[in-house]
């Protein structure tokens, strides 16, 4: 069908400042057939996707949202190195049509690195509604690269953007050389550095002028690189020129160059953009509430709490069932519990289990399938709806622009424990899963704050731990069940706050440390796009399903064998003689202090050990070990007291969340010490908190 002469593969990068609508456009371009790529050397979420256009295969690389190409953050460094590597055949820079003057800053910086650029103006449909008219041809003529208006809402310009990108990749459009901005009175200094570098042109990997500019701006990474290639003398000379600029202009060169770039942009865009009116958003009054003291934090916390309440109720009936129960409406309460999504799914799984045993007879194989795999995976899978609902709510907050307002509102209270408003994003994400939350700390500009968060974020219970808490709660009388959930979350946030406060105070005393600071863009509030919400939900669900299908599935089989096979490799009906019992025999003493008798202690100890790998597995281990079909039955069989359950809940919530979290803490901190310290801290605090909870509950 396609003409083979045109058939070629191109790699095209997409970059843009935060909030320009980059992810949305990437998803449209790739039709959602994207995957997270593993980039050598760095664990960073870089999405890659493929699309075909006019017989050309295009590999699209979605780089993280960044404001510029300094080496301020890891993301900026990654994006910069990738573009300079020469790998991309073209770079699509996305600019927000609603804020072209500001968001073009990234485009102009990209143009200083490479001529192979296409500029896409996003939200072009909304620009007209906001009275903004942009002369794209004029901008294109001035910059010498294609400029294409696009809209994710109406799909306008998508094909044209791809066509232009291919034209640039083939060398039919775009600039042959990077763009030159006239830096006026700074030019003599820039060209002095340029001529110093020129002598080493063959050995330097990057464009000379770009390097000169970055060196003048004080880029430490690049400076070290140049010193390595060109030697100490050249490096010293460059440093001297930088000092001279500082002395003569009495300004930081980085500031001078940024100012020049914005002025230059003003000249390029000035008569190419016409603004007729600035329309005030309808939600303006509502958003102001977030900035009010007291009202703001309360509003934000209410939104978060409300979200989780609704999600819980739909999924498990909790806490509505308890409310109804306490009002004397017992029938309604149990109906809600029974017909909640979780209740229905649990019925389904136990029906499948008994169907298998009834149809194929009792054998070790049907036992493995029914009581090992189906009840193991099933006990975790019933939480999928919960994960979908919570993801949907979080996506709404993020895509509507409410999330950054919440960050501002909570900045005050959070700074008391040494954490800035920026931390609210990773904190909220932690309630879903700690792994992406830890990756999200990269956006936090303060390094010390980030390291503290790497250590403390895992205290915040993810949905896997929620699974365990709810399972424990299900075995208690409903009123106490609710109390257990409250206890779990309170213990978690208390630990998070206290440990942060201690680390922050210690740091402040040692280094004089600074107050947490915030610099955060507040994009206009708008109605979220349905498909964007769905993508968020689907991404999270996919992640969860994959985990249930792989890790939980394999663990279910492994646990079944450890429980049903004796050390002499023979099938056994008595779990007390199994391999699991032997292994956990040594660990049992850890739960003696909370009054669990040795006969049962090994079951708990084994579940906690498995929970190290993935927390959901605590529930499935208990059900498999006791040979029951639900956590509720398992716990009743174990006959744990309310005090013991409370103590165990606190321990489960606070100790190391899972192997994946530990791995990501290591890859982000790049420090074995930091990672080990985190593990020790979590285990220590969890254990002490468990003992305290047990002690307190006995007194009460």
């Amino acid at each position, binding site marked *: 069908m396609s003409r083979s002469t045109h058939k070629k593969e191109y790699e095209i990068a997409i970059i843009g400042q935060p909030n320009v609508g980059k992810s949305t456009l990437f998803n449209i371009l790739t039709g959602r057939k994207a995957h997270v790529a593993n980039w050598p050397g760095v664990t960073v979420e870089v999405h890659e996707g493929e699309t075909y256009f006019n017989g050309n295969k295009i590999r699209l690389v979605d780089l993280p949202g960044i404001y510029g190409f*300094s080496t301020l953050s890891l993301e900026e460094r990654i994006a910069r190195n990738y573009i300079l590597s020469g790998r991309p055949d073209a770079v699509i820079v996305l600019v927000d049509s609603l804020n072209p*003057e500001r968001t073009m800053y990234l485009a102009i910086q990209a143009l200083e690195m490479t001529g192979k650029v296409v500029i896409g103006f996003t939200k072009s449909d909304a620009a007209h509604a906001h009275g903004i008219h942009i002369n794209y041809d004029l901008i294109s003529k001035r910059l010498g690269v294609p400029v294409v208006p696009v809209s994710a809402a109406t799909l306008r310009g998508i094909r044209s953007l791809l066509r232009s990108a291919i034209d640039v990749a083939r060398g039919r459009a775009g600039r042959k050389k990077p763009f030159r901005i006239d830096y006026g009175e700074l030019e003599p200094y820039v060209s002095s550095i340029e001529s110093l570098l020129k002598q080493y042109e063959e050995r330097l990997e990057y464009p000379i002028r770009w390097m000169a500019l970055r060196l003048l701006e004080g880029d430490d990474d690049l400076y070290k690189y140049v010193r390595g290639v060109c030697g100490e003398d050249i490096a010293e000379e460059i440093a001297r020129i930088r000092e001279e600029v500082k002395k003569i202009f009495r300004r930081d060169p980085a500031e001078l160059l940024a100012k020049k770039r914005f002025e230059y942009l003003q000249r390029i865009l000035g008569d190419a953009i016409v603004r007729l009116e600035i329309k005030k958003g309808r939600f303006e009054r509502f958003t102001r509430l977030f900035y009010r*003291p007291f009202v703001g934090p309360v509003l934000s916390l209410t939104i978060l709490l409300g979200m989780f309440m609704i999600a819980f109720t739909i999924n498990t009936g909790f806490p509505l069932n308890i409310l109804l129960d306490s009002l004397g409406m017992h029938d309604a309460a149990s109906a809600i519990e029974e017909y909640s999504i979780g209740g229905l799914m649990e019925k389904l799984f136990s029906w499948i289990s008994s169907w298998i045993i009834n149809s194929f007879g009792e054998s070790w194989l049907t036992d493995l399938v029914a009581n090992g795999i189906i009840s193991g995976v099933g006990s975790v899978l019933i939480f999928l709806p919960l994960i979908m609902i919570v993801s949907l709510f979080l996506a709404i907050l993020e895509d509507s622009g409410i999330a950054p307002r919440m960050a501002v*509102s909570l900045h005050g209270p959070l700074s008391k424990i040494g954490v800035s408003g920026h931390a609210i994003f990773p904190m909220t994400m932690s309630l879903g899963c700690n792994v992406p939350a830890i990756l999200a700390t990269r956006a936090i500009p303060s390094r010390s704050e980030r390291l503290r968060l790497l250590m403390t974020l895992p205290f915040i219970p993810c949905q896997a731990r929620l699974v365990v808490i709810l399972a424990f709660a299900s075995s208690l009388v409903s009123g106490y069940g609710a109390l257990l959930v409250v206890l779990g979350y309170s213990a978690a946030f208390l630990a998070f706050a206290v440990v942060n406060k201690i680390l922050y105070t210690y740091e402040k005393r040692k280094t004089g440390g600074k107050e947490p600071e915030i610099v955060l863009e507040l994009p206009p509030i708008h109605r979220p796009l349905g498909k964007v919400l769905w993508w968020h939900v689907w991404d999270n669900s996919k992640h969860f399903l994959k985990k249930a299908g792989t890790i939980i599935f394999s663990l279910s089989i492994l646990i079944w064998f450890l429980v049903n096979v004796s050390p002499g490799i023979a099938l056994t009906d008595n779990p007390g003689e199994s391999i699991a019992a032997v292994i956990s025999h040594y660990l049992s003493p850890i739960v003696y202090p909370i009054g669990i008798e040795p006969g049962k202690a090994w079951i708990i100890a084994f579940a906690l050990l498995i929970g190290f790998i993935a927390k959901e597995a605590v529930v499935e281990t208990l059900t498999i070990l006791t040979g029951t079909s639900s956590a509720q039955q398992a716990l009743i069989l174990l006959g744990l007291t309310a005090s013991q359950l409370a103590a165990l809940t606190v321990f489960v919530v606070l100790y190391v969340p899972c192997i994946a979290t530990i791995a990501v803490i290591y890859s982000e901190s790049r420090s074995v010490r930091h990672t080990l310290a985190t593990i020790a801290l979590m285990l220590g605090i969890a254990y002490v908190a468990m003992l305290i909870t047990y002690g307190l509950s006995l007194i009460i």
Partner: protein
Amino acid sequence: MNIYNRTVALEELPSGSRARIVEIIGRGGWIYRLYQMGLTPGVIVDVVLNIGRGPVIIRVMGVEIAIGRGIARRIIVEPINT
């Protein structure tokens, strides 16, 4: 040109006021983020909201940005009468 030759910290400006940035004091990562967001000397900022505590909300180049008070204290501006 400007007859009001007084400069103040951004932190001190009331809601609704307008000013031109004169200088940003200090060093460190923050300052580069501010430059990238268009906060450089000479640029005009509108104070959207400043309630005396919590972050100051400003508008620069059409974009609203929340700025912590510690940083707002280090952004020296020259008020413009509107």
